[in-house]
């Protein structure tokens, strides 16, 4: 290592990854339905897409986790986004591509992607 810039580059890269272990502040929860119905409909790639995306873009205070069956099996994969102080947003029939869009628009910029929400 030659310079502080190199040190900072490693830090920025790693901070996204270890940010998963952060317990500070109000955390936005992204919950992916991972019951049998969800997994069959393709919830697992959606879950990893959310998890990787959040870490790559170093989005702070977001926890990506999973849950069981929400009861909307026909809409799986279902993803709920809970921002503290706001009403829960439920996204349905998710894909990894849609997940990236939700990260960019909803988690980073705070705009709900209403075209993917439950009608």
């Amino acid at each position, binding site marked *: 290592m*030659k310079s502080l810039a190199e040190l900072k580059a490693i830090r920025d890269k790693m901070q996204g990854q270890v940010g998963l272990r952060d317990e500070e502040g109000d955390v936005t929860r992204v*919950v992916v339905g991972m019951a049998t119905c969800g997994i069959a409909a393709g919830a697992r790639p959606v879950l990893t897409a959310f998890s990787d995306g959040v870490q*790559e873009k170093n989005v702070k205070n977001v926890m990506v986790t999973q849950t069981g069956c929400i009861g909307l099996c026909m809409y799986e994969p279902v993803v709920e986004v809970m921002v503290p102080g706001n009403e829960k947003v439920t996204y349905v029939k998710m894909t990894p591509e849609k997940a990236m869009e939700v990260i960019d628009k909803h988690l980073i910029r705070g705009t709900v992607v209403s075209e993917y929400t439950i009608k």
Partner: protein
Amino acid sequence: MYRSHILVCGGTGCTSSGSQLIIDALEKEIKNAELESEVQVVRTGCFGLCALGPIMIIYPEGTFYSMVKEEDIPEIISEHLLKGRIVTRLVYDETVTNDGIKSLKDTDFYKKQQRVALKNCGVINPENIEEYIAYDGYAALGKVLTEMTPEDVIDTIMESGLRGRGGGGFSTGLKWKLARTIVPDADQKYVCCNADEGDPGAFMDRSVLEGDPHALLEAMAIAGYAIGSTQGYVYVRAEYPIAVERLQIAINQAKEYGLLGDNIFESGFSFDVDIRLGAGAFVCGEETALMTSIEGHRGEPRPRPPFPAEKGLFQKPTILNNVETYANIPQIILKGADWFASMGTEKSKGTKVFALGGKINNTGLVEVPMGTTLREIVEEIGGGIPDGKKFKAAQTGGPSGGCIPAQHLDIEIDYDNLIAIGSMMGSGGLIVMDEDNCMVDIAKFFLEFTVEESCGKCTPCRIGTKRMYELLTKITEGNATMEDLDKLEELCYHIKENSLCGLGQTAPNPVLSTLKFFREEYIAHIVDKTCPAGVCKSLLSFEIDKKKCIGCTACTMVCPTAAISGTVKNPHVIDKSKCIKCGACMEKCRFNAISKK
């Protein structure tokens, strides 16, 4: 990239309760469930709650599982990691509330703690330098080398008020300043780290080495820059194999990344660190003995002055700080002297790590701001005393320290308050004692330790402590007179005044402080020939209450010397000439018929 991190404690405490088996089982089950690319297992340093080991914490949820067994792993994988359902029965009960699970940080054990020296312990993988860098690691070294002069660094440490965490409590900044200025034309200087943690019950230095070794390396490099040294030595005891291994890994990684070695950050500053293993002699924790040992000689102290700042290792100016002291340095540089000085009391700044042991529910490692009361540590963080027993005293400072009795429970713990009541901070071992502990016996325990560990170089310590031990033995056996007690006390002062090094100078402290607060217990042993706590065997006698004994014969079965006789359904009797006072009968009796006096 992983969606979930499983942090398993790999400190010595949890390793001995089987955490490596847990890690192996986790890796196997994760493979079976095809989760290798989604879930990462990280072996960390100590979390602090050693009593509940093996400990694991699963992120992003932050779920804290305690006392995990190998056979629980498949359930954790299939429930928690696949379906997202927390396995409640394994969760630390303190975190379970009516409306779900609360964060570990909100439990009684962690709530009042403030982690500075232990900041990364249990958070990062100590064998991965990049995780340390993620938590601002080596940023302080970068700042020092690119923005600060050595004088700035020393001033910052002085202003922070940091004092040595190893025992004496000397100002760290002043120590560095002396080493920088006292011999202006020295061709070489040394930065040493005392990791020869010898106090019985203290293990915070081990935990830092095991959980956050880079913090030490970074701090030593900063110290090297400040005093003008290019070589550091960590003197660590060989009985800490995990710590030694991780420290070596850390040194190798730091060299590989160019954070140790030549021309760090192209600043022209070079610094190297080597490990020296100690063979476990307690006296080698004394600074001059430690340096003598690094030089390759028998670990014996030498008189001061000259102090190490002038003539230390290999006769060159040297600073020696302990692990916990160093662990504070990078954060003081990054967050500033004012931040550090805002914690603690007027003359003791920052936090202190205590190793809680003895009669306490939450055995483990805690870090609290200076000035926290003993009551808060024992009753709130420590979770009180098991079996509803009463607090009698806390022993601090190990064999060099003294005890704090119940009437001083509200003392604000800092260097000066402890000295004022005849104890000392020491390295931070805190052993809690309840009504079942005999204070004379405790003093004898520590003297036995000192006698064994005295290096023998000076007479007061070599012979004096032995004579003290003999007098204490005489007292606990009921053969002493009040004159013996006077002799013991006189001897204490002689040894304190005339010993060569800190070991001898502080060896009488356990006796002096128990005499100060529990003199009546000594007198009970001498005059009444009884041990009020029921510990000293020579003064005990076991008796069976004929009215309560129903003749069940349970006691005769367990008595190892066949000292109990009697027929079925008739009261039994103990033959005192055969009784070895082991107490087995008393434990076995279901009718409370056996008593000891």
